[in-house]
């Protein structure tokens, strides 16, 4: 056993758990997703059916799921990048007091599980007259509505839930980036006569670009991977006219509920492709691949 203690072998022993786990629980499943997407997977008689799964994919529920997931991803990015960015700048400003306290208060929702968050939002956005949001509508003279019955208000609830849960985390991301910007930059800009607005546009925003790109990237993956929120709000994977159906919901429906592993895998491959393509376009737009600095 002495060889195990050699300095040359030690690093391999250290990284062994990852290599094993990677092989068994990542590389093999990813490869078999690709393979299964060309198969009809039945107990005992799995066989290749070419592109049939990909051809059968394009039904109405697929477009609904893709549209819902895309809308959700779009709106969460539109809200959850600028808002936390501005709030982080405020919290980081010298005029702000007790910013640590407020940062924590906004961060607390991130601690809840999506299940608990969904349960709370079902209550707050309940369909009855006395339900919290409906009673607030009454104050402004609007009628009671069933928030989860239409695709527009349903999406609104999903986006509000996401904003509530993730704004705090994104604020922390942006604040950590802001704190690494040297004060001297702002001081010399002030000497040159720049006002607060100019300093924000010319110094703060450009220097927040790397962290923004990171947050957008994880938001795209996270947005298209959304499932639990809708599963809880609509009490399961079924919703009227599939207004709450997401891409993962569709994958779950085919792969787990209907046991069509082949078709489910094809959906997984399409989803992975979509998110990667969007991310590459996004990274290109923001110039991450440019060798400027």
């Amino acid at each position, binding site marked *: 056993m002495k060889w195990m203690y050699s300095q040359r072998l030690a690093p391999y022993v250290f990284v062994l758990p990852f290599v094993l786990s990677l092989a068994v629980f990542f590389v*093999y499943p990813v490869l078999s997703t690709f393979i299964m997407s060309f198969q009809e997977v039945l107990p005992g008689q799995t066989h290749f059916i070419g592109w049939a799964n990909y051809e059968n994919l394009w039904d109405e529920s697929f477009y609904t799921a893709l549209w819902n997931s895309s809308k959700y991803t779009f709106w969460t990015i539109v809200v959850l990048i600028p808002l936390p960015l501005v709030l982080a700048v405020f919290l980081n400003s010298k005029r702000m007091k007790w910013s640590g306290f407020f940062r924590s*208060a906004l961060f607390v929702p991130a601690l809840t*599980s999506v299940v*608990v968050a969904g349960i709370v*939002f079902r209550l707050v956005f309940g369909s009855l007259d*006395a339900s919290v949001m409906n009673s607030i509508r009454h104050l402004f003279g609007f009628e009671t509505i069933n928030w989860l019955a239409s695709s527009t208000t349903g999406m609104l609830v999903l986006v509000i839930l996401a904003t509530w849960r993730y704004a705090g985390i994104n604020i922390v991301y942006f604040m950590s980036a802001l704190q690494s910007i040297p004060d001297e930059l702002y001081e010399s800009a002030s000497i040159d006569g720049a006002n607060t607005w100019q300093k924000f546009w010319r110094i703060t925003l450009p220097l927040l670009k790397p962290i923004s790109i990171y947050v957008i990237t994880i938001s795209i993956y996270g947005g298209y991977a959304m499932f639990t929120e809708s599963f809880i709000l609509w009490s399961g994977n079924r919703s009227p006219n599939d207004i709450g159906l997401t891409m993962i919901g569709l994958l779950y429906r085919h792969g787990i509920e209907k046991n069509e592993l082949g078709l489910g895998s094809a959906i997984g491959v399409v989803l992975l492709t979509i998110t990667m393509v969007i991310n590459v376009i996004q990274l290109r737009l923001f110039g991450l691949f440019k060798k400027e600095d």
Partner: protein
Amino acid sequence: MSVRRFSPQTLLLLVLFVILGALALFPFYCLALASFKPSKELLRFGLNIKLQADLLSWNNYSFIFSAGGAKYITWYKNSLVITAVYTVLCMLLSSMVGYGLAMYRFFGRNLIFIFVLLVMMVPIEIIMLPLYKQMIALNLIDTFSGVILPFVVSPLPIFFFRQYAAGLPKDFLDAGRIDGCSEYGIYFRIFVPLMTPAFGAMIIVQALASWNSFVWPLIVLNSGEKLTLPIGLSSLVTPYGNNYDILIAGSVLAIVPIMLVFVFFQRYFVSGLTVGGVKG
């Protein structure tokens, strides 16, 4: 305290953040309030934000701790067991890998690190079908091992430990060797104690992730007595009327321990949950 100490801008910012803070905490108020209201009232009229003091009682909580809440207690225990086992194994294995990647130069190191980053990026939901098939093949369906094993060597803590260990002086490694310590002894006796803050952040983040995880346990577990807390709670959410008594008070009890830990170990949460943002 006089308001005049603050400039108008400060006052404006404070007003803004008091409102935002109240909005962030409002759902917690709603949940707590609902947990003290009778479930029949919630089912028939919805959650009223007014206190309605005459309706409030501890009944839902006492129900959970009576015979009727036995299944909830089982879920709670299951979640505690899974979270504890997962967190301990994850810390041991991930810190080893992170340490190995940071301290040694060896053939294949960069490739392994690229894979760490790659796995970090792909959401598990996308590979869950083949992973599910894998679990069937390994006979791990409906077992705690099936919930724990696939994610126990987790890329996020590996990345974090690697970054942390890379900042520690390598002189300790040489010193340990001169004193005749084995490579593994150096890790356990010298570097594990040095990485305590990193462990603090990662224990909290991984325990939280495990406590709250939903999609994977939903797929792996199916018998009632093995469900975890989030799955159990979600099974109470039905289209035909809810079991509000256990559901709401149970949700409160699920977040109370997290809140307590957060109050005492806040800085670990903040540094741990934003790992990916630390430039590698």
